[in-house]
């Protein structure tokens, strides 16, 4: 086990880098971060649309969210794998395909988080802003979103953990992330699948568990701030 670790840890961490493209855990994190960063603004739009008073904004967001939520991530990856090249008329690297699928997936799930965050803002906040003459848009930008997004930090981090785990599906379309290299190592070593995949699992676990602890910490922090907020908010 130890010599396996010694030999293959670089592969699992950064893939063939520096002699080849970066991969392994580094790529896994890159995929998850890119997915989250790109999906976030979209999910804010989806969340706003979902909590909108206008049916024309609500309906398309409703459809997108429920289609994505009703499909396994793997299905989204296959769809992107076959549909994106058709749309662009040329082949697209696996990494881009995977990121597109993850963005799509994350947009829907984070969108629901944003919607919940928006709807949890007390009505009195909106009334106070509108009474001052702030438009709907300004009220959303200055009053609702800053508070909602702050309250959502723990949920966003949880989604990020989810995303890290979902990047492992990239191995199906040969994206050279952590799981892919686990598979590669297993094919090379051949006789010790238990140990190889224990190693891969440990890598995922360390990252995800640390992040989960961070979620717990931010949750307590946010709840403390929110507790103050309720203490001053009265009965709204």
């Amino acid at each position: 086990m130890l010599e396996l670790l010694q030999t293959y840890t670089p592969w699992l961490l950064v893939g063939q880098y520096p002699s080849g493209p970066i991969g392994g855990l580094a790529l896994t994190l890159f995929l998850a971060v890119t997915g989250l960063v790109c999906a976030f603004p979209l999910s804010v739009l989806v969340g706003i649309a979902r909590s909108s008073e206008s049916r024309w904004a609500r309906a398309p967001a409703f459809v997108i969210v429920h289609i994505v939520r009703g499909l396994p991530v793997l299905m989204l990856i296959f769809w992107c794998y076959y549909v994106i090249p058709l749309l662009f008329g040329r082949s697209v690297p696996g990494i881009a395909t995977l990121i597109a699928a993850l963005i799509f997936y994350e947009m829907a799930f984070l969108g629901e988080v944003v919607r919940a965050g928006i709807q949890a803002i007390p009505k009195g906040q909106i009334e106070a802003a509108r009474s001052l003459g702030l438009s709907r848009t300004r009220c959303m930008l200055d009053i609702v979103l800053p508070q909602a997004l702050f309250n959502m930090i723990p949920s966003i981090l949880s989604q990020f953990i989810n995303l890290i785990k979902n990047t492992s599906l990239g191995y199906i379309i040969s994206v050279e992330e952590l799981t892919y290299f686990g598979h590669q190592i297993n094919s090379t070593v051949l006789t010790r699948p238990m140990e190889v995949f224990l190693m891969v699992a440990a890598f995922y676990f360390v990252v995800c568990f640390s992040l989960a602890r961070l979620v717990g910490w931010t949750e307590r922090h946010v709840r403390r701030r929110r507790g103050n907020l309720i203490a001053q908010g009265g009965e709204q």
Partner: protein
Amino acid sequence: MIVFNDVQKWYGPLQVLCDINETIERGEVVVVCGPSGSGKSTLIRTINRLEPIQSGRILIEGRDIHEKNVDVNQLRSNIGFVFQSFNLFPHLSALRNVMLAMLRVRKLERREAEERAMALLARVGLEDKAQSYPPQLSGGQQQRVAIARALAMQPPIILFDEPTSALDPEMVGEVLQVMKALAKDGMTMVCVTHEMGFARDVAGRVLFMDRGRILERTTPEAFFHKPQHPRAQKFVADIRHA
């Protein structure tokens, strides 16, 4: 200045405002009181269109506020509104709470907005709390910041919706003092409140509401000593014994 003309409002089958006809003059301080559920909050919330009405008209300075070409944001920016539960923005400091609408609605320069906001906080006695966040302030302080926030738009009218009901008794005085000073400065004020002392000291008139109707309109003196309507008599007796 504010005219209600045959205003009716329903929540589904329940009529919450019936046959409201009333005129409030410039500089007048009017106290609206009545048992809970009598429609008094709803009444003042119709003035800045926080609540829609189903029929009748509300005129401010002669203009129907429900006319198609009325810009609701413009309308609201000229009517201060103070809530029972303060509704300060908890993620902004006291100063930023007061500045926000000056920057976003009046489009003032940041420097000018800040100066005016500081002056307003001084007026409500809270210049030393400018950098505090709402959760760090007492209820009375929060409500005074909320009044400064409403004053920031230099509105000719301010509406108060039970501004002292959510406060601990020892904090009621500081808020009423600020409101009295406003009244003395000639502000047009419509206050939903049961504070008899405030009504006696500064109100020109008291409107008594029950079940969506204005049942009595008279001076504070007459209302608290010789209410005419049986329900007003019961209400006055109740708040005296409270």
